């Protein structure tokens, strides 16, 4: 990610042009990008590095396709309030929008706001070299409802284990590969007298639902059963929750209860924590010499496996077509233009977000811009990660996250995991019923 200096990044962009054998969209033979020339579209998107990059591509998009886009960027919270209002009350007002399925999917698909994309992708409306198969299959699943594509993922956001190489070396420890090894290493590295925590992640209930997820999956648990009922008090979920409480109580920082990510990552970054688990994006903060004390000491490993294996979470924003749009084919052309292989390379160079396309992910442009162990760790995780596993896929996500969050806070305060999980289960059943 943004481990690049400006000069390196510029060099890599040049490399992308020369090294990646990817045709520019306009050069793709026999595909008529100008088919919907003269169309005007309205996209409503959230503030995100990708949407900022995309906005800068609009003039080129207009040249290549003749499509003009009104690109409205608003904050994520506002998007979640304004978009549903417009989609419901003013059909045709929105042609395309930006969606995070782990958050939006249940509500948007139930309301019928996503236009299914398969009929566009598998037709002459799609350039032959756009190549859906180039995407990691598991990443495509992020934007699928019942097997049907409803959006195009733009990044790969996994969770990994970050560790301080120097601290592990000092105790002659290898990066832990299992939950048992993680627990042992965390306890061995924990040194309250020196103000060093063995392991840190999120302790704020609502936020920690995301970081708890891989622990529940590692014990073989899941958020919901096949019918969409919560499974928070299953033995596996209880085990995952108990482990989360135990390791953080035994080897976490003293103020772990209520700790948000903005407080947890600085501990690892300032060498006050030996290990840290959270989203891969955090590598940016650890590799930044202006703010990090561990630039050369940060190591990355796949999340340790439990009895059920290792299952990270996989999420990604992406553009989607509004089912109520009256210009869906032109909207697909625009989305397609912004997600070609060449454009994905350009977006990577500008945003440093790990790409969702395999060709770009495996290119030097990406693999040389991030530490090799990060690439190895994420590659090991992609196929077994749970698409949209960040929280249960339900309509009232924030409310359900708050209920699960209460259970997390309870175990961090030393309360019984089974009781906490059962209370959360009951609460979520109640929320979903009503």
């Amino acid at each position, binding site marked *: 990610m943004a481990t690049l200096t400006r000069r390196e990044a510029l060099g890599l962009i040049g490399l992308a042009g020369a090294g990646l054998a990817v045709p520019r969209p306009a050069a793709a033979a026999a595909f008529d990008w100008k088919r919907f020339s003269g169309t005007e579209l309205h996209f409503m998107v959230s503030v995100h590095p990708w949407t900022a990059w995309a906005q800068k591509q609009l003039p080129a998009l207009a040249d290549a396709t003749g499509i003009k886009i009104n690109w409205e960027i608003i904050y994520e*919270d506002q998007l979640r*309030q304004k978009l*549903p*209002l417009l989609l*419901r009350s003013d059909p045709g007002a929105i042609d395309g929008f930006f969606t995070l399925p782990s958050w939006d999917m249940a*509500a948007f698909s*139930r*309301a019928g706001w996503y236009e299914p994309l398969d009929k566009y992708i598998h037709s002459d409306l799609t350039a032959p070299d756009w190549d859906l198969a180039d995407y990691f299959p598991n990443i495509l699943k992020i934007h699928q409802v019942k097997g049907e594509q409803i959006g195009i993922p733009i990044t790969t956001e996994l969770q990994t284990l970050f560790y301080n190489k120097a601290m592990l070396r000092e105790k002659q420890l290898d990066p832990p590969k299992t939950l048992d090894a993680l627990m042992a290493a965390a306890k061995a590295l924990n040194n309250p007298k020196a*103000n060093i*925590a063995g392991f840190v992640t999120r*302790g*704020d*209930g*609502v*936020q920690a639902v995301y970081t708890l997820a891989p622990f529940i999956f590692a014990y073989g648990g899941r958020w919901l059963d096949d019918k969409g009922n919560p499974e928070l008090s299953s033995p596996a979920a209880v085990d995952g929750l108990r482990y989360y409480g135990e390791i953080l109580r035994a080897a976490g*920082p*003293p*103020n*772990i*209860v*209520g*700790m*948000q990510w*903005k*407080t947890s990552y*600085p*501990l690892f970054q*300032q060498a*006050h924590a030996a290990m840290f688990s959270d989203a891969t994006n955090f590598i940016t903060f650890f590799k930044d010499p202006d703010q990090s004390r561990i630039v050369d000491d940060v190591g990355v490993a796949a999340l340790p496996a439990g009895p059920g294996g290792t299952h990270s979470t996989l999420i990604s924003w992406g553009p989607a077509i509004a089912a109520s749009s009256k210009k869906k084919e032109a909207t697909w052309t625009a989305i397609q233009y912004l997600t070609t292989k060449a454009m994905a390379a350009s977006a990577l160079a500008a945003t440093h977000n790990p790409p969702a396309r395999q060709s770009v992910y495996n290119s030097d442009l990406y693999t040389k811009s991030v530490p090799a162990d990060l690439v190895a760790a994420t590659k090991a995780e992609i196929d077994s990660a749970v698409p949209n596993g960040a929280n249960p896929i339900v*309509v*009232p996500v*924030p*409310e359900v996250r*708050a209920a699960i*969050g*209460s259970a997390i*806070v*309870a175990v*961090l*305060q030393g309360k019984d995991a089974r009781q906490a999980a059962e209370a959360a289960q009951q609460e979520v059943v109640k929320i979903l019923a009503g």
Partner: protein
Amino acid sequence: MSGVVALVRPVEAAPRRRPWRRDWTPELLLAPALVAIAAVMGFPLAYLCYMSLHKWSLIGFAAPAFVGTGNFTALFGDERFTNSLWRTFYFTALGLATNLPAGLGIALLLNRAFFGRGLLRALLIFPMVATPVAMGLVWVVMLDPSLGVVRYLFGLVGVADPPLWLSDTDWVIPTLVFVDAWMWTPMVALICSAGLAALPVEPFEAATVDGASAWQRFRYLTLPLLMPMLLVAAMLRLMDLLKVIDIVYVMTGGGPGHASETINLYNYLVALSYDKIGYGAAVALVLFALVLAGTLGLIRLRRAA
């Protein structure tokens, strides 16, 4: 009695104007302001009342449905709501109990002439003009037990294990009150300073001549004379404390658990995060009623003073 009435009546009746022909100038002059207030305050309030009587969702798969007072009765069975209500009262009481004496104390100090007084006054305004969100984040870092300076400072005075401030369910509200007080006590001090500067000199001279002690002068002269200003400060702080959300949102997000969730934060979460617009409107109306009642109570106190 009847004689008086008989005497007065003719005088009153003398102009014999019809009511609609009287002078309407005051009302006409007030009209634009009244219309503006009705538009910017009356309408939203009326609409809020309307929403509070419905089951209403933005994402919504159904149109808003009328539920009467259902949202309000549900409030009393909602533990998160009742807890946030009591927590807000606790926060407000603690806030007033610290802000007012501290503000008054600072004002009394500033009332004496000493070198650098002007500079100190200017410096006092700093926390107040800074953005609460930014200041909240700075305090989060300072209070961090591993990285923050606060633990270090406590260590210097021999307290090796200070509380965990924001992570401790018992300490989180007092800690937030402290940060709030750090930001807003200067405002109370400035209001009191203005009041002190405007006090008449004669009663104090007379009291000194009569041999009143400094405490007696403060207790029987300064405090009563300053009371109207102090109540203005109390009113402004009361409104802000009851409505507090900014520093809570950035410093704890209502946590740990819900241990610092104030009613305004709960209101925000319910209405805009949980998408229960009608229920959120009911919470907002309760908060509005609380702030209004508190303010009216203080206005009445001020009149009495």
